[in-house]
């Protein structure tokens, strides 16, 4: 069915790309995550630095190494706004699992993606992940919020 992807609505194509990307996150497959990103991918991560440019496979591998077993990485409230070649989407992500230091993670954070269709394939050109900060002067990360 060579023409299927041409007629499939952009939103369905993007949903399927995001499924594949989140599966790679859960499986701690850095190559699988980076495969969905553009070469000039700009990342705003929830931890410093302020921004990174270019796929960061090493950074992902280091982060994956802090998890024991699979990572719980579930998307909620995914909104996709797309036209023929440009799209953005936003969602809440529920991150759960066991860390190698023995602690348990259970955090909701916000995710926004900017997408470009390149050679017929949707790619992530920009990713923005964050948790709110408490504005009581401490600037502590608000990691206990639930939607």
């Amino acid at each position: 069915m060579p023409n299927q992807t041409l007629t499939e609505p952009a939103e369905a194509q993007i949903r399927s790309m995001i499924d594949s990307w989140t599966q790679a996150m859960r499986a701690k497959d850095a190559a699988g995550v980076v495969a969905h990103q553009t070469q000039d991918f700009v990342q705003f991560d929830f931890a410093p630095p302020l921004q990174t440019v270019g796929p960061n496979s090493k950074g992902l591998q280091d982060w994956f190494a802090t998890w024991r077993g699979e990572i719980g990485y579930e998307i909620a409230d995914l909104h996709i706004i797309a036209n023929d070649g440009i799209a953005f989407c936003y969602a809440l992500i529920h991150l759960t699992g066991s860390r190698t230091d023995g602690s348990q993670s259970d955090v909701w954070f916000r995710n926004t993606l900017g997408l470009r269709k390149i050679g017929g394939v949707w790619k992530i050109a920009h990713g923005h992940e964050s948790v709110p900060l408490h504005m009581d002067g401490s600037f502590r990360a608000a990691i206990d919020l639930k939607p």
Partner: protein
Amino acid sequence: MMQQAETTERQIRTLIESWAAAVRRHDLPAIMAHHEQDIVMFDVPPPLQSRGMDAYRKTWDLFFKYHKPSQTFDIEELEITAGEDVAFAVAIMRCVASQAPGWFPFRLTIGLRKIDGDWRIAHEHHSVPAED
């Protein structure tokens, strides 16, 4: 086509620059003039998300407790990726707020759609990296 893309990018850049100028002078009607009613805002302070224009307005009521008119709320870097009727903008911003010493940088991503010939903001995500 190239010229069309440049015009679109300039329109969006102007919209975001006037929005930031409206924030600096605490002009709420001008801040909210180019948004979709069902805007979803991810802001620096809690909550996780603010949905709709009433909730969006409240995020600015909160911000103005910490930010005085004409204090810094500036665009440092702005990259716009625009199609015919969908666009996103990625920015590094600089802000002054009373709880933080000096100015601090934050990240801003804006999602826009063109409706009836006008670009409208459908989504904003403001954040500061978490240190812990």
